[in-house]
Each structure stands twice: as structure tokens, then as C-alpha cells.
């Protein structure tokens, strides 16, 4: 199953395949998230398999398997993810894990930065960077991308328009529980968290939406993206499909009640 290099020449070819030709393109359309053209191969694993470790070691220790296992656990146990999945099924987009979710190793976008994943609109797939996302984070990233997928499923989103993308990003930041942990707020707004907590959820959502938009529309200035988010903010902030509430991170009762709500309201 494992691909072994027979000679040094093949090794060099493989290395060139990985390292060389790393030009980044900047298309004008949204979704500039690029799937790794060359697969990211960790050099440690590579050397290990070349010397003495059998293929089973790579499989046991692979990020790929760990990522998929965590997603299956979330699908089975996490009530918020279950609500979104049942809602998508009712809208006509049933989620098949083998078709619509992919865990792959990504190249690192820079020093001390991480790219967790995105929703690919052409193929309609949730793409997760298995080597950059921790087990605890997979649940949050998966929920966020599921909300983006839910919006894609129920509405025609124009890929070139900034306002519609801004709406999905606002909703994703609002509903996926990104802005609920005080530690994160401290990181992004260090001094204001001491003085002013009232109503900071909106600011956090705005900021995170603009940050996410910058990845999609890297050519545009931040002012323009900020203006688009402000234009669209009120309507999209109050649209709480399919969860019905803004879930509070760390409370299982809140999540379970959201699940029962969605079943009871038959939504």
C-alpha cells in the first residue's frame, strides 16, 4: 500500500514534486482557498518509511485517520452538528461523509499561521487540513463549514458578490460558537475585554467575518469588505437557521436543547 522509493533518483524526483513549483495564483473570483496541488508529505514520516518502519506505522500515526475518526465521533455525538445535518437532509442535501467531507494534509500558509479548512463550492465538499487542525478544533471547524454548506444548499449564492459571501461568513461566525470563548476575545481585543464586555459579540462576529472574507477576496482592500459586512450585518446576524439560537460554548444542555428544538419545531 505504501509507495516506496526504490532509488535515490526517484527520491529526488519526489522531493522536487513536493517542494518545487509552489507558485500561488490569485484568481479574481472568491474561494481563493486552493487545494494542495502537491500533497504535503511530512519529511519525518517519509524518512521513517524509507528506512525501516512498515506502512502500518504511517497509518496508525496518520493525521488523516485521526481527523476522519473525530468527524465520525462528532456526527454521532454532537447535537449541534446533528441538527445541521438533519436540516440539510430536509432541504435536499444529505451529507455523505465519503463524498462531501475530505481530510487532507495542507501546506502551511505561513509561520505561526494555520489554515483549518474551507467549503469548496465547485465540488460541494468540506475540505479540512488534517495536519493543522487539532481534535478539539475539528468540531468547531466542521460546524462552521456545515453552516456554509447549509447556506449554499438553501440559497443561490453568487460567488463574485462580496455581500452574499459576507452574509454566509457572518452567519458562520455567529452560529458556530467562534466568538463565545473569552480567551479568544482576549487574544483579539486584549484590553477592551476588561472594560467592555456588553455587546462585544457583534464586534467579534464582524471582525471574524472580515478576516474570513480576506482569505476569499485577497485582492480587495479591507475597507470594502468591512463596508459589505456592515451593509449586510443586521439581516444576517438575526438569521438563526438551522440552530435557532446562538450556542454557548461549553454547555452541553444548551446544545441538547437546540437539538430538541429543531426536532420539535420540525425545522
Amino acid at each position: 500500500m505504501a509507495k516506496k522509493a526504490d532509488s535515490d533518483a526517484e527520491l529526488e524526483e519526489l522531493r522536487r514534486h513536493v517542494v518545487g513549483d509552489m507558485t500561488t495564483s490569485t484568481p479574481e473570483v472568491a474561494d481563493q482557498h486552493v487545494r494542495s496541488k502537491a500533497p504535503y508529505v511530512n519529511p519525518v514520516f517519509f524518512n521513517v518509511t524509507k528506512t525501516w518502519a512498515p506502512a502500518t506505522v504511517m497509518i496508525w500515526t496518520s493525521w488523516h485517520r485521526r481527523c476522519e475518526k473525530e468527524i465520525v465521533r462528532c456526527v454521532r455525538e454532537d447535537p449541534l452538528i446533528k441538527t445541521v445535518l438533519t436540516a440539510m437532509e430536509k432541504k435536499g442535501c444529505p451529507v455523505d461523509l465519503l463524498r462531501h467531507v475530505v481530510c487532507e494534509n495542507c501546506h502551511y500558509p505561513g509561520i505561526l499561521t494555520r489554515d483549518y479548512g474551507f467549503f469548496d463550492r465547485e465540488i460541494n465538499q468540506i475540505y479540512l487540513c488534517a495536519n493543522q487542525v487539532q481534535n478539539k478544533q475539528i468540531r468547531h471547524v466542521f460546524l462552521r463549514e456545515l453552516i456554509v454548506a447549509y447556506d449554499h444548499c438553501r440559497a443561490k449564492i453568487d460567488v463574485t458578490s462580496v455581500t452574499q459571501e459576507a452574509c454566509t461568513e457572518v452567519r458562520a461566525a455567529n452560529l458556530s460558537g467562534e466568538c463565545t470563548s473569552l480567551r479568544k476575545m482576549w487574544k483579539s481585543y486584549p484590553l477592551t475585554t476588561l472594560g467592555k464586555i456588553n455587546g462585544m459579540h457583534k464586534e467579534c462576529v464582524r471582525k471574524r467575518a472580515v478576516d474570513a472574507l480576506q482569505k476569499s477576496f485577497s485582492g480587495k482592500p479591507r475597507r470594502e469588505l468591512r463596508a459589505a459586512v456592515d451593509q449586510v450585518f443586521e439581516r444576517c446576524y438575526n438569521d438563526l437557521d438551522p440552530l435557532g439560537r446562538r450556542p454557548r460554548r461549553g454547555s452541553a444542555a444548551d446544545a441538547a436543547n437546540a437539538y430538541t428544538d429543531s426536532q420539535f419545531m420540525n425545522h
Partner: protein
Amino acid sequence: MLVSFSLESMGNSSNSQTSLGTAGDEAEKENSICRKKSSLWPLRNCDYYKTEFESCNAYKSKVFQRFVYGHTQDCSKWKDYYESCLKFETSKDEEDVANLLEAERERREEWMEGSKANDVWEYRDKPPEEWEQPWDRAEHENRHFTSFFKEYREQCRAPVSKDGKPSNQTKLTPDVIQKGPKITRIL
């Protein structure tokens, strides 16, 4: 005891199908013949209101309410709903539960309003076409890795399509999600 809503009272409800269909029919019949014009037939587990009250009152959620709304919410309504739900269990009198029913109706209306007021985009009639298009995983998957999703699928029940033949794809229906397969290690 979970029972669906009666459609008359809901007015313009888009969802004609209910996931708990049989109980809804019975409730409708009862409503038409024996009962007054009733609204919802209450049936959540009363513990729902209790947990909502407790989570509303907790310190962390007070912080969260300040964070989101700018002020703390009034939690007495959840206690009222809990008490009226308990009363209903013993007395089966609708008047006890009138406030509950109104609240559920309003909540549902708010939920729908939130999505309808969002006119940024145009809603679809049909799901996108590319959703069901096949995607060859073998082409893109790295040969080093095995797929955990494959084990999960093989051990799930494959749903039967309209032809009567089993379909290739297992869809994540609520049954499958809740039960889930028993996965054993292969290595």
C-alpha cells in the same frame, strides 16, 4: 411525550410533513371533535424548561447574555413554563398551559421570520445539482492513507432506493446518525 403541532392553528406553516406523523393525526381528530379550538398540544418533556431555566440562571450564561445582548435576560418565564407544564401533566387542562403554547408559537414564528427577513440572497427551489454528482475519491486520495469513512459506511445499513436495489451511497439519515455502527479496529 412528543406530539406534532396541529396544522390549523399554525396557519401558514410550510412544512406539511411531520416527523411524528401518527400522533399529529390523532391530535387533529381530537381537536375537531372533542376539544375546543386548540392550539398546540404540549408535549415536550418538562425537563426542557427546567434545563433552560437553570442554564439561563447560571453565572457563565449571564456573562454570555451580557456579551451578546448587553443585558441579562429575565429567567422567570422559564420557571413559569416549567410549573405550568407540570400542572398540565396532572390536570390535563389547557388553560394551565396557555402561556406555554403561545410562547412556543411565537418562538417558531420568530425563527421563520429571521430566515425570511434575510433577503440578501435568493432562496432555491431545488438543491444544487453538483451536490449529488459523484466525485472519485480514489483519484485524489493519497495511497498511504486508509479511509476511516469507508469502514463507517460498510458497517452502516445501506438504504434501499425506489427501484428496490440497494444504493451505492449511504445517506446520513437521523436513524443512522443516532445509532451509528460499531466500528472495530482492523489493524
